[in-house]
């Protein structure tokens, strides 16, 4: 019988313990196979439950409901103000985009016209080179979220990133899982793109490269500042160095998420 309660082991698995207590539990786990199994079981139920409902937030919300909330007849005027999708998408993940379109539209309705209340500001950038500490939004999103679904951050970073979205999942030439992720601003424009790969031994994600994407025209019109191409090229270059050239199909990605990337 473990000296820790189920609740404590669950909080440990969820990253919800205060650091001192988490360290104590972590140390005790080394000699306690039963407690380790319990922690593992709590982790896997969380991953499964999240994966089971991951697609549901990407289902389109009915126009009628949006109109009810906005108190408007038809949101046509808002829709035309939604910034058009960025052009020059690499073909590799183009197939993933429709999934994002409906939710991006609904979020865009809110974001394109109105300033949201500013969220608390993170200390550093939302995505930085190197291992990603567990428990952060980025780590959670890489581990559990499907491609194409923007996730609103509780805290924006100083560069104005307010959402994260996985764009594609790939395998590099060593079979390692890598994901391309974008940080989006409040108008759902990508500001920063990065590649993170998963170290299966330590189950941590490591950011291998990032590229800043130039902001589009502030008027929200259809003309975009045509820069940012070389930054995107840098990521493309990184992907080809890694040997990660082909996006996994959504079903494969979903299966991997459900099984903790095994």
């Amino acid at each position, binding site marked *: 019988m473990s000296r820790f309660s*189920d*609740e404590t082991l*669950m*909080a440990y698995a*969820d990253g*919800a313990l205060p650091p001192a207590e988490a360290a104590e539990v972590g140390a005790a786990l080394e000699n306690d196979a039963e407690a380790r199994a319990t922690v593992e*079981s*709590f982790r*896997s*139920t*969380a991953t*499964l*439950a*999240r*994966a*089971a*409902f991951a697609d*549901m*937030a*990407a*289902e389109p*919300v*009915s126009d*009628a*409901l*949006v109109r*009810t*909330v*906005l*108190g408007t007849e038809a949101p046509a005027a808002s829709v035309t103000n939604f910034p058009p999708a960025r052009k020059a998408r690499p073909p590799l993940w183009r197939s993933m985009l429709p999934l994002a379109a409906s*939710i991006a539209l*609904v*979020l865009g*309705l*809110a*974001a394109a*016209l*109105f*300033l*949201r*209340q500013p969220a608390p500001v993170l200390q550093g950038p939302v995505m930085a080179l190197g291992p990603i500490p567990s428990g952060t939004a980025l780590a*959670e999103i890489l581990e559990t979220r499907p491609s194409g679904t923007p996730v*609103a951050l509780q805290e924006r970073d100083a560069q104005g990133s307010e959402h994260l979205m996985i764009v594609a999942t790939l395998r590099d030439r060593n079979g390692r899982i890598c994901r391309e992720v974008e940080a989006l601003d409040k108008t759902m424009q990508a500001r920063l793109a990065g590649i993170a790969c998963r170290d299966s031994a330590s189950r941590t994600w490591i950011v291998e490269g990032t590229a800043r994407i130039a902001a589009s025209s502030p008027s929200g019109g259809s003309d975009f500042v045509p820069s940012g191409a070389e930054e995107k090229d840098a990521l493309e270059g990184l992907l080809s160095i890694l040997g990660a050239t082909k996006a996994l199909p959504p*079903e494969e990605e*979903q*299966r991997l998420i*459900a*099984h903790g990337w095994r």
Partner: protein
Amino acid sequence: MTASEPDIRHQIVALLPRLRRFALALAGTRDVADDVMQTACEKALGHLGQFTPGTRLDSWMFQIVRTTYIDHLRRNQRRRNTELTPELAESLPSDARTHEQISARADLALVRAEIARLPEEQREVLALVTIEGLSYQDAADVLGIPIGTIMSRLSRARKKLARAIDEPRTGSGPLQGAQR
């Protein structure tokens, strides 16, 4: 900074996909979830004045969706069991629990079916904390119960879920009936 009413309306629109997922996790069927969402949004709009600017709009909305769902349950108590299970189990192959090469989609349908079988009070905690990502404390605030209760309900829910997924179910539970 006080948010104007149009501001709040647009913030609610941005929350709709998550709120609907929460309703779906509670209700188990899209029909019921969409009904609950419509009523909950009307309720929220009628009481926008009661929202305290500066507090969390998502918590406030989760609360309204949950009370709306409970109202719905009370009104439809007798119908509930018969309308809950079929949609959740529809994509579940009959040999899902014994077949080695279980597909991911059926696997996840199975998880949803097991979540639907949890007691109401455990399912709502699982939906808020695990699926929607609220902290234990935020979930405690939404549900108006102590954080210790959140943790015990959540750990019981997840143990039950783990057992249900690991061990093939035998006998004649409601799921068996739904599998035809």
